[in-house]
C-alpha cells in the first residue's frame, strides 16, 4: 500500500497535476457545504411541519369547524403563555413543580445508586432484598399516591415521595446493570496489578458503571417530572399538575395546553442538563469520533 502511495505522489510531482492534498481539501470543503445546506433544509422543513399543524388548527377554529371549548387554538395558547409567563400567576406553580421534581430526582437517584452498589457488593443483601424490591418495582407506583398524601400531607412531600419511588428503581437497576455488564477483563487485570477489594470498587466498578447510571438518569429526570405532575393532579394546592387538573375541570383549553407546553419545556431543560453532564464526564468515550 505504501508503495502504491509513493507512486501516485511521484507521478503527480512529474506531471504537475493537482496534488492529492489539494483534491482532498476541495472534497472536504464540498462536503462541509453540503452538510450546511442540509442543516438549513431540515430547519425549513421542521418549520413547515409546525405550520402545517398550527395553521389549519387556527383556521379551523376561526371558521367554526373546530370547537375551541375542547381544542382551544394556537393563538389562545400563545396569548395564555404571554400573559402567564410575563408576570402572571404561573411562576409559583412552576417553581413548586421544578423543586419537587429535582428533589425527588436527587433523593431517588442517590438512594438508587447506593442500593444498586450495596446489592452488587453484598450478594447476600441482594438475594434477601430481591423479592421485596421486585414486587415494589412491578407495582404501579401511582397507586401509592393516595397513601403518600396520607403519610406526607397534601404539600410537596407526597409528590417528592412519589417521584423517589420511581427514580429509585430506575437508578438502582441501571447501576446494577452497569456493574454487571462491566468487562471482567478490567477487573482481573486490576486484581493482577494488586488492587484491593476497595480499590477495585472505587477505581474500576464505580467509574465503569457511570455510563449505565447516566442512561438511568436520562430516564429518571423524565419520570421524576411525570411523578410529581401526577401527584399534583391527584391532590395538591400548588404545582403545574394542579393547574392542569384545574384548567381541564373548568374547560380552559388554552390554560391546559399552555401548561403542558411549559412542562415540555421543563422536561427538555432537565434532559439538556443531564446530557451535557454526561458529555462532560464521559469525554473519554466521545473521543473515538474525533
Amino acid at each position: 500500500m505504501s508503495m502504491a502511495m509513493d507512486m501516485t505522489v511521484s507521478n503527480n510531482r512529474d506531471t504537475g497535476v493537482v496534488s492529492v492534498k489539494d483534491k482532498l481539501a476541495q472534497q472536504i470543503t464540498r462536503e462541509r457545504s453540503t452538510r450546511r445546506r442540509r442543516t438549513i433544509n431540515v430547519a425549513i422543513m421542521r418549520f413547515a411541519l409546525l405550520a402545517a399543524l398550527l395553521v389549519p388548527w387556527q383556521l379551523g377554529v376561526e371558521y367554526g369547524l373546530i370547537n375551541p371549548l375542547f381544542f382551544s387554538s394556537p393563538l389562545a395558547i400563545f396569548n395564555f403563555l404571554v400573559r402567564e409567563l410575563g408576570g402572571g400567576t404561573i411562576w409559583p406553580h412552576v417553581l413548586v413543580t421544578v423543586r419537587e421534581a429535582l428533589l425527588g430526582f436527587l433523593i431517588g437517584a442517590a438512594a438508587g445508586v447506593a442500593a444498586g452498589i450495596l446489592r452488587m457488593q453484598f450478594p447476600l443483601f441482594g438475594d434477601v432484598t430481591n423479592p421485596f424490591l421486585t414486587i415494589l418495582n412491578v407495582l404501579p407506583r401511582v397507586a401509592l399516591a393516595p397513601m403518600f398524601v396520607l403519610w406526607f400531607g397534601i404539600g410537596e412531600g407526597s409528590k417528592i415521595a412519589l417521584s423517589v419511588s420511581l427514580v429509585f428503581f430506575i437508578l438502582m437497576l441501571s447501576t446494577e446493570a452497569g456493574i454487571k455488564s462491566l468487562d471482567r477483563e478490567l477487573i482481573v487485570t486490576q486484581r493482577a496489578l494488586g488492587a484491593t477489594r476497595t480499590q477495585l470498587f472505587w477505581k474500576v466498578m464505580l467509574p465503569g458503571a457511570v455510563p449505565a447510571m447516566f442512561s438511568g438518569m436520562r430516564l429518571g429526570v423524565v419520570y421524576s417530572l411525570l411523578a410529581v405532575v401526577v401527584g399534583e393532579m391527584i391532590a395538591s394546592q400548588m404545582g403545574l399538575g394542579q393547574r392542569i387538573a384545574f384548567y381541564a375541570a373548568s374547560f380552559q383549553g388554552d390554560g391546559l395546553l399552555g401548561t403542558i407546553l411549559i412542562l415540555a419545556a421543563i422536561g427538555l431543560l432537565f434532559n439538556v442538563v443531564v446530557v451535557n453532564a454526561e458529555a462532560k464526564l464521559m469525554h473519554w468515550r466521545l473521543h473515538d469520533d474525533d
Partner: protein
Amino acid sequence: MTRLASEKTAAADAATRTTAGICIDSLGHAFPTKDGGAMLALDNVSFEVPNGQFLAVVGASGCGKTTILNMAAGLIRPVSGSVKVGGEEVVKPLRDTGYMFARDGLLPWRSALKNVEVGLEHRGVPKEQRRTRALHMLDVVGLSGFGDSYPAQLSQGMRQRVAIARTLAINPGTLLMDEPFAALDAQTKIALQGEFLKIWEKDRKTVMFVTHDLAEAVSMADRVLVLTSRPGRIHADITIDLPRPRDPGEIRFDKHYLHLLDGVWQSLKEAEARAG
C-alpha cells in the same frame, strides 16, 4: 531503577529471589464438567524457573498453560500442589509480580498516563513519584507525548505498549505473560517482541511466558516447556541457547534458531499425538 516496595521487603525479596524464581510443585487441577464429573486439567506438574530466566510454556489449547499462569498470579488456587514465587507461597496476587494478558485491559476512562499509574496507585505511591515513573515508562515503550490520550484514541499496538508500561511501572521481580502479543498484527507483534526483549535484557526479571506461537517462544525465551493437553503434563524441556541480545525480527533466518524451532515443533507434535 528505584524499588517501590519498602526497603526492608525489597531486601528480603532480593535475598529469596537469588535462590528461587518461580517454583511449581506437583501441581494438580481439575475443572467441573457439565455432567457433574471432573476434567483433569493438570496432572502432577513440577518445574522451577530460576531467578532471571525467561521461560516460555507452549502447548495445544487445553493443556492448562494459562491455568498454571493464573495460579502463579494468585488469581486461582490449585486443587493440589503449590506455587511459590520468590520463595513465597502464592495464595493471592503478589505485589512483586506483574501480569500481562493478550488483551490490554486498559481502563477506558483513564488517559494512557493514568493507566500506567494505576498499579502504583494501588501501592499507595505518592502522586508526584507516580507521575514521574509513569512518564518514564511511557518513554521507555516509545509513547512519550501520548500520556494524555485515551485508549479509544490509540491503536491496538499502542494500547499494548501502554499495558507493557503499566506492568513494568510497578517494577515487578517476576513477570507472568499470557500471550501478550497475540492480539497484534504480525508486524507490530515482532516490533513489540523486540522492544520488550530490549527492556527485559537490561534487568532480566524472571519471566513465565505462555504462548501458542512457537516462533515467539523460541525467539524470546531461554528455555521452552512443551506441555501435553488434557491432562497437562510436561512433555519436553528444551534449552534455547541462542545468544543475547536477540532481535526477534532478525533471528528468524538464523540456522540454529530454525533448528531449535523445528525441535520444539516436533516435540509439540509428539505431545499432541500422545494426548490422542
